[in-house]
C-alpha cells in the first residue's frame, strides 16, 4: 500500500464518518460543526486528485462562507424550549434508509461493473503540458477568449450569482 492509498483511506474514513455525524446527531449545531470537518476532508480528497485550485476554493467557499451562513441561519431560527433535539427526523425515516441503501448498492454495482471509457488507474505522465500547473491551466480554460475555453458559461455563472444575491436580499428583507 503506497502513501497516496493510505492517505486516501484515512481521509475517506473521516469523510464518511463526519457525513454520518451530520445526518445522525441530535443537536443541529453539532451537525453544522461536523459539516465543516466534511468540507475540509473533501478538500483533502481534491488535493489527492491534483485539483489544488478546487481544494482552495472548497476551503474558502464551503468551509468558510456556506458554514458561516448556515450557523447564522441556525442562530436566527432557534426555537425556544427545544434545546436538545433540534435536528429531528420524520416518521418515515426507515423508508428513507431503505431507499438510500438500495440506491447506494445499485450505484456501487453499476460503477464497479461498468467498463469505463477513461483509464481506471492513474499514470505519472501528467495530463497538463510541461510548465503549466493546475491553477494556470484553469485560468486559461475559464478566461481565454481565443483558445478552447469556458468563457460563456463562466459569464452566465456570474449572472447566476448576481441573481442569487438580489434574490436573497429581496426574500430576506423585512417589510
Amino acid at each position, binding site marked *: *500500500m503506497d502513501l497516496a492509498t493510505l492517505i486516501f483511506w484515512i481521509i475517506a474514513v473521516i469523510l464518511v464518518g463526519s457525513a454520518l455525524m*451530520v445526518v445522525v446527531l441530535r443537536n443541529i449545531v453539532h451537525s453544522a460543526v461536523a459539516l465543516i470537518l466534511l468540507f475540509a476532508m473533501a478538500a483533502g*480528497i481534491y488535493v489527492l486528485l491534483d485539483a489544488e485550485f478546487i481544494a482552495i476554493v472548497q476551503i474558502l467557499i464551503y468551509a468558510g462562507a456556506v458554514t458561516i451562513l448556515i450557523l447564522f441561519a441556525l442562530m436566527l431560527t432557534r426555537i425556544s424550549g427545544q434545546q436538545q433535539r433540534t435536528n429531528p427526523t420524520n416518521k418515515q425515516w426507515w423508508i428513507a*434508509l431503505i431507499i438510500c441503501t438500495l440506491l447506494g448498492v445499485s450505484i456501487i454495482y453499476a460503477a464497479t461493473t461498468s467498463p469505463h471509457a477513461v483509464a481506471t*488507474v492513474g499514470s505519472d505522465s501528467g495530463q497538463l503540458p510541461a510548465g503549466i500547473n493546475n491553477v494556470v491551466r484553469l485560468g486559461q480554460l475559464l478566461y481565454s477568449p481565443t483558445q478552447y475555453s469556458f468563457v460563456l458559461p463562466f459569464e452566465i455563472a456570474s449572472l447566476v450569482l448576481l441573481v442569487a444575491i438580489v434574490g436573497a436580499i429581496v426574500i430576506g428583507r423585512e417589510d
Partner: protein
Amino acid sequence: MGLTLNHFLILGAILFCIGLYGAISKRNAIGVLMGIEIMLNAVNVTMIGFSFFNHVKPYSTYLTGQIFAIFIITVAAAEAAVALAMIIAIYRKRETVDVGEIDIMKW
C-alpha cells in the same frame, strides 16, 4: 496496487446516499439543506475523480471535470444563500422551520 477510479466513485456514491438520507428524512429545513450540500460535495468528488483519471489527449488537458466542479460550487453557494434567506423569511412569518408544518402550498 494504487488508487483506482472505483475508489473515488464508491466514495462519492456513499457520500451521495448519506446526503440523500439527510435531505429526505430531516424535519428541520436547515438539516435538509445540509443534506443537499453533502450531495453536491459527493458529485464534486466524482467529477474530479473522472477528471484525474482521464488520459485521452487532448481532452485530458481541458480538465472538464474540474471546470464542472467550479460551476457546481458556484451554483451551490447561490442555492445556499437563497434557501437560507427563504428559511429565515418563513421563520419570521410562521415561527417554525419544520418542513412538515410549512404546508401553505399543499392542496
